[in-house]
């Protein structure tokens, strides 16, 4: 297994998660496990209110750099064959894919944990700014306590996670 490859893409237009998965699968020769997370825009907020549109802003250059840093953390921690991240920006409608994270490893636990980790870190640390439009009302979304808790899950188990990677898929 050589160095893991990483594809990071900021997409201003709708993307096709299945095409990304197919492309990723072709590239992960030797992997036994692929985990793919697809996030979809929900038409309702946590309180059940309708969201008519979601607008994502990113900071070109810096956002890619920060995501690269997050992926590097995962690559150090788990023996990945490769990873792929696609993140939308711009205006999104309900049901549209907003994020795609795929990881491949020889063993399934590493692929699961790395994808889960990447999503937690993206949610907490990736430089995106979101505006929800509800009817005539637009509001910027600020980070939620839950996202920081999700990220904190990975803090105190570094040794543990490494030990588990060594097992068979």
């Amino acid at each position, binding site marked *: 297994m050589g160095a893991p490859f990483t594809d990071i893409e900021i997409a201003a237009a709708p993307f096709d998660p299945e095409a990304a998965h197919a492309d990723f699968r072709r590239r992960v020769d030797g992997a036994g496990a692929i985990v793919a997370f697809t996030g979809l825009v929900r038409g309702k907020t946590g309180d059940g209110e309708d969201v008519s549109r979601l607008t994502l802003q990113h900071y070109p250059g810096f956002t890619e750099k920060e*995501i690269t840093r997050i992926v590097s953390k995962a690559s150090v921690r788990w023996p990945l064959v490769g990873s792929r991240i696609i993140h939308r920006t711009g205006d999104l409608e309900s049901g549209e894919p907003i994020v795609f994270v795929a990881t491949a490893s020889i063993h399934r636990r590493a692929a699961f944990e790395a994808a889960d980790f990447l999503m937690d870190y993206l949610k907490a640390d990736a430089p995106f*700014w979101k505006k929800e439009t509800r009817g005539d009302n637009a509001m910027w979304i600020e980070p939620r306590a839950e996202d920081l808790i999700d990220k904190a899950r990975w803090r105190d188990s570094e040794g543990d996670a490494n030990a588990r990677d060594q097992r068979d898929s």
Partner: protein
Amino acid sequence: MARILFFGRLSDFAEAIEAPLPDGVRDTDALTAWLSRENARLGEALARPGVRVIVNNAFISAPLELSDTDEIAFTSPLSGG
């Protein structure tokens, strides 16, 4: 030319600026003060908690000296991916 960018809530009140640093502005605090004087609504938004400044692609944690080749981004709390 310095580049000054605004993200999130701050981008509702100001467009990107590509210009030499204003006279007398030598660090990020001075730039924040200058922007707040020029644009009262932006000033209010910059005073809210959680605003962070990125200089040349790195978050800063203390006021930083600036020059005319810097890219300075003012950001409201990020929403995450």
